[in-house]
């Protein structure tokens, strides 16, 4: 159409029916980038914001300065966590389809982003996740039953039925409450880290946001406060290329990387292959050590791909090629770690099948157990009085009155 407009409107490389095209992705070969000292000034590490930190090469060998040299049993543990996360996701989506859940969001294809980072951090570190970081819940040893009960809003729900599915939390596991409002956790994580520094404690904070959510003010606040006070915090941008129907260019990724925001505020920015378990682990550890030693914050961009739908309410076939996932150049994190382990002679197809079967059974068993705490339709239900609690620490008079009114209403209703 004849249009006078001179406005630039970012466009994804391919829409439905068009051939997938990831040529816009800047890739570096595995092992290509140097690994500076964790104490290096942000100016010295500037280049890491533009290249791509990768450890696993195309034949799945670990190469280069960023190889974290993880013991095989820990690699197997990482594989186990990622596989469990994926099987859990798949099952929950199935249950949502069956009407057993109101809503679900899976992290398929992005498991390494959460699992490798979670394993690279210390148990005492405080995590401020986004809604697609279920791998962190798994790494921190949350039982699936607890997560499932939250999804079911049943009597076992740690949120007492108040939150949408996947908005988990755990105080003992140091997993912060997930908000439905995007990016709000970012300055909160920085504030937590500032408090740790003020108190002279050496724990650090780590927080995650999607690349789309990085457009929110809170991302800017987080980088600014982290830079000004050199807060011990990791600010992770999970660039899975999509934010519902808009591609990463609409979020500002067309002109420069998201990692590049770090140097602008005088902090390192690391751009990392998010589907390379070893690279994510190594980059997270580098930034964590730096923060722990008083070097301040780091922005870590994890380049990955949202292989599934945004949520169970979404159909990606409406806005991207059906076969786009198969063309993603950085592969699948589970497959890549599996082949790496096999290359080391530390894993086999058989053991993998075995593990899958075991974890699958675990998911089934825990789901059965979760249902005993109640389902959306029947079984035990949370006490309705709970609706009025935790608005304030103590129940104020006006909410006590409203609780009475609701009781009357429920008694009065057929």
């Amino acid at each position: 159409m004849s249009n006078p407009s001179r406005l630039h409107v970012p466009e994804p490389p391919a829409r439905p029916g068009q051939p997938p095209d990831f040529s816009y992705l800047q890739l570096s070969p595995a092992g290509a980038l140097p690994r500076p000292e964790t104490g290096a000034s942000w100016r010295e590490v500037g280049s890491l914001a533009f290249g791509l930190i990768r450890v696993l090469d195309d034949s799945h060998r670990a190469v280069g300065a960023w190889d974290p040299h993880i013991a095989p049993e820990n690699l197997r543990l990482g594989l186990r966590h990622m596989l469990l996360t994926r099987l859990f996701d798949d099952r929950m989506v199935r249950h949502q389809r069956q009407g057993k859940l109101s809503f679900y969001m899976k992290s398929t294809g992005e498991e390494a982003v959460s699992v490798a980072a979670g394993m690279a951090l210390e148990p005492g570190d405080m995590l401020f996740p986004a809604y697609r970081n279920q791998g962190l819940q798994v790494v921190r040893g949350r039982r699936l039953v607890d997560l499932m009960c939250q999804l079911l809003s049943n009597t076992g729900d740690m949120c007492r039925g108040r939150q949408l599915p996947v908005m988990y939390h755990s105080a003992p596991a140091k997993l912060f409450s997930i908000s439905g409002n995007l990016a709000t956790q970012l300055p909160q994580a920085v504030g937590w880290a500032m408090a740790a520094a003020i108190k002279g404690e050496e724990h650090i904070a780590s927080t995650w946001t999607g690349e789309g959510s990085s457009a929110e003010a809170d991302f800017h606040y987080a980088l600014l406060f982290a830079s000004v006070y050199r807060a011990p915090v990791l600010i992770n941008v999970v660039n899975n290329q999509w934010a519902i129907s808009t591609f990463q260019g609409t979020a500002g990724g067309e002109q420069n990387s998201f990692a590049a925001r770090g140097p602008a505020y005088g902090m390192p920015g690391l751009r990392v292959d998010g589907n390379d378990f070893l690279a994510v682990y190594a980059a997270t550890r580098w930034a964590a050590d730096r923060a722990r030693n008083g070097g301040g914050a780091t922005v870590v961009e994890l380049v990955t791909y949202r292989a599934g739908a945004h949520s169970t309410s979404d159909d990606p076939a409406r806005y991207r090629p059906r076969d786009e996932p198969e063309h993603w150049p950085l592969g699948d994190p589970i497959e890549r770690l599996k082949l790496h382990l096999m290359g080391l002679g530390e894993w086999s197809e058989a053991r993998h099948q075995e593990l899958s079967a075991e974890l699958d059974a675990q998911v089934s068993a825990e789901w059965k157990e979760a249902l005993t705490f109640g389902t959306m339709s029947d079984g035990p239900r949370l006490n309705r009085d709970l609706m009025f609690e935790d608005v304030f620490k103590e129940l104020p008079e006006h909410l006590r009155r409203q609780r009475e009114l609701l009781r009357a209403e429920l008694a009065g209703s057929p």
Partner: protein
Amino acid sequence: MAQMNMIQALNSAMDVAMGRDPNVVILGQDVGFFGGVFRCTDGLQRKYGEHRVLDTPIAEGGIIGAALGMGVNGLRPVAEVQFADYVYPAYDQIVSELARLRYRSAGDFHAPVTVRMPCGGGIRGGQTHSQSPEVLFAHVCGLKVAIPSNPYDAKGLLIGAIEDDDPVILLEPKRLYNGPFDGDPNKPAVSWGTHPKGEVPVEHYTVPFGRAEVVRAGTQMTIIAYGTMVHVVAAAAQAMGFDAEIIDVRSIVPLDVDTLCNSVCKTGRCVIAHEATRFAGFGAELAATVMENCFWNLEAPIQRVAGWDTPYPHAFEWEYFPGQTRVSLALKAVMEPA
């Protein structure tokens, strides 16, 4: 005339407005190629081009700030906030800027921006996909605020909003997008096809701001409601066999005080219903206004029916929602005051 649900009516409103005025543009999250998470802008980018229907970054404050600047430069932006629960990052640009620009510049600058946002519960959205923040805009002078209860009003109000030179906040009860809802989640869903207000002209028309609608004439009491609650109070009154006069406020700002108060002065009894949290909700303003204007005619205290003063819990959606039972108790109360 055509059968339209509220989504189609809103879509038609934007289509009509864009067709008539090349300066009308749409911006928001996922509104472009995808057509919006609720499909309200479906097909508009294909029809009018990606320069008039812009997918934006996920930054509500940036969306409204940019829309204001576009408005100053002669466009008529229609900004979509994906959920009313997510409007707060834009609150400063709305309250301090959009609402104030004409005043502080003595009319030399203004920005005719329309801000659309789905509001209300009933879709199991939990505390961050169910809010009704109308009073947070009603208190801010300089904004017009409206909430339709049906497709006909939705289209008429939205075209009116787009053509209005003042900024307008349009709250869309998402539970009504696909059909009327009487408050009973167990009944099978009804479509707008069966409802007279689902009959919507395909062409241009407007529903004026500042005019409430008497959706049912009655003698025993006046029920003042808006959005989803219009349907709930009607069902409750009918179920109880009361001859209630039911008024759909429709336009929160400006408020049609005369229509509301003439009715209450006539019936002498008044129930006010909204889905939002009760404390300092818009029902308070309605109750205070009615009391001030109908004091000598009131035969019972005005009753407010509203959501509880808690967030909207995922598990207790229907215990939170002011359904027919809560309404009925209020209707009883005005008829037989303690």
